[in-house]
């Protein structure tokens, strides 16, 4: 494979202001063409912040970013405003958790999609509107022609999410960033949207980074998974690796604590404690206070990022000496 489409190296993001938050601490990620990467983590683990950094959506004044972010060979962190607005929507687009908040309430769906096509491709109004219709049909909105003139509030949640996907894909971006796009949806609608995204990804051959806290959702859509905890990636691997043979104690605990298939009345395995507050840069393993295997060296220095195989890394001292998996 040639150079990866997305290459994040040692990304560190700190929010300043009343209090300082070390949101992302040394994240490195790469994504090849046509791959679907799941970014799995709990709230506050830095997954959404990493996504936003990829599109430079973070507030300039309050954010300190270091490291490098390269997308399709371009340095995202060095872009000026004009380059950036050409880049957003054209090379990378993003869909969000709450479409009702992400869509503009005062324009119709058709106008919003057409605007993006006109802006990026310099298309005429008629061509842009035709593309908008084509996109709505692509995301399988029933009676698409009529829906072009609908305002976001006139649609149901699932429909709005489809419309947002249509908007995001209107200019055929190389990369789609999906930030918990199905979390706010009902179960029967969630699976429809997941299957739609899977199908569109295959048809259009784009790369997707899918942020989720729900391992079940990740299993439905991802090829590779990166698990985040306290602003760091603690484990990466193929979906099968992470689900079947997780090596880091955090994903191990997450998978064990799932209620899926747990017997009624049987006690659930839990990860004790709560995630750390991020008001200091990590100097040791962030998971150590909750970890059953913690050793003295875990609390003294940062754990090593051990590469077990290409694309399979574990940030844990336990991975250093190969132990037979239990």
């Amino acid at each position, binding site marked *: 494979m040639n150079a990866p489409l997305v290459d994040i190296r040692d990304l560190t993001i700190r929010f300043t202001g009343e209090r300082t938050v070390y949101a992302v601490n040394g994240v490195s990620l790469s994504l090849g063409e046509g791959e679907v990467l799941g970014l799995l983590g709990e709230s506050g683990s830095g997954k959404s912040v990493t996504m936003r950094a990829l599109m430079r959506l973070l507030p300039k004044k309050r954010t300190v970013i270091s490291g490098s972010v390269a997308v399709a060979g371009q340095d995202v962190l060095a872009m000026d405003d004009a380059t950036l607005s050409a880049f957003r929507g054209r090379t990378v687009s993003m869909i969000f958790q709450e479409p009702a908040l992400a869509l503009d309430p005062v324009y119709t769906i058709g106008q919003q999609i057409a605007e993006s096509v006109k802006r990026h491709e310099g298309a005429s109004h008629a061509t842009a509107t035709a593309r908008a219709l084509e996109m709505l049909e692509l995301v399988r909105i029933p009676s698409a022609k009529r829906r072009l003139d609908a305002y976001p509030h006139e649609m149901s949640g699932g429909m709005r999410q489809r419309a947002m996907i249509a908007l995001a894909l209107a200019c055929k971006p190389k990369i789609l960033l999906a930030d918990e796009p199905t979390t706010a949806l009902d179960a029967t609608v969630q699976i429809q949207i997941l*299957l739609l995204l899977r199908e569109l990804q295959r048809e259009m051959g784009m790369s997707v980074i899918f942020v989720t806290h729900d391992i079940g959702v990740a299993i439905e859509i991802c090829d590779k998974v990166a698990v985040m905890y306290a602003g760091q990636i603690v484990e990466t691997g193929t979906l099968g690796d992470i689900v079947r043979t997780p090596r880091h104690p955090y994903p191990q605990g997450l998978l064990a604590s799932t209620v899926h298939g747990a017997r009624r009345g049987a006690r659930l395995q839990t990860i004790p404690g709560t995630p750390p507050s991020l008001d200091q840069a990590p100097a040791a393993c962030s998971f150590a206070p909750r970890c059953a295997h913690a050793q003295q060296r875990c609390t003294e220095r940062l754990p090593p990022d051990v590469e077990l195989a290409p694309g399979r890394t574990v940030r844990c001292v336990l991975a250093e000496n190969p132990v037979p998996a239990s």
Partner: protein
Amino acid sequence: MTLIEPLPEPILEPLADIGGPAQPLLDVKNLTKHFPVGGGFLAEKKTVRAVDDVSFSIAKGETVGIVGESGCGKSTTARLLMHLMPRNAGEILFDGETVGGTLGMRDFRRGMQMVFQDSYASLNPRLTIEDSIAFGPKVHGIADRDARALARELMDKVGLRPEVFANRYPHEVSGGQRQRVNIARALALKPRLVILDEAVSALDKSVEAQVLNLLTDLKREFGLTYLFISHDLNVVRYISDRVLVMYLGQVVELGPVDEVWDGPAHPYTRALLAAMPALDPDQRTQEPPITGDPPNPIDPPAGCRFHTRCSFFEPVCAEVCPALSPVAGGAHSAACHMVIPGSGHSRAPQSLAPKAGDIAGATP
């Protein structure tokens, strides 16, 4: 016997068990709630049928789960049961007594408590955790000192060290800890029934498991009965003995949780179960079990409310609303024409009634 006995400190005792174990703790009959919407100048008046003729009962010591998608009326049902809003019709019997009749609202509120989804919004931001938990008992006439002691005892029970947390404010603790505070506050009045309305839905997965374990422990220790409302089928299966599946304000299936999971009779229940993401990368879902979004509960479809999304739709479904009927060979019931003998649906079981064949013959 001494002449002057010290007055006993008023201590909250749980409400007495009146009807004995055979009497359901909660008996709900034909519960209905309609909200009028619109109806402004020249605008047409419409009705949201949020809860429509819902009947069920909860036995003492049982955990009943309610599942359904947004807008199906699960939270409205909870609020009606708590008497947080008036109902249009229906009867709610708490251990055989009607609220406002033989059971006063004050005592009823002691008997039934509720934990809400949003742990932050349901706590007073200006009260410390200890004050919040002690508030209810004080209203019920417990001395300040005793109420505080009770609050600290409960904090300990829900896994919050009193010396660390008692004087903190809600914004100073994490979501999981706040939900523990809400649980402690609900338990402060020694309730018999606790309604948990999406109580673990907003929590991270690792914390969710902790709170579920806590709920199991508390149930055993205090002999509680739970009504557990959630959209997460895995959680409901784990915690419930019986389950109610709701769709657009109606109960579509009701029965022991394992039986409903293993042999769902209503197409909607089947779709809900099939829509759960598989936890096996080799068994990914290939086809969405149903298409479309749940219809708007304003003026829901006539007949069976699910007929607009159902793949077994036949004309009878749009005409007659199926009643909750026992599923053949099982202990559970479903509201679907396919389980009602002689309903007129071609997949309905053959019944002994002679009319059934005639009607079934009319359909293709």
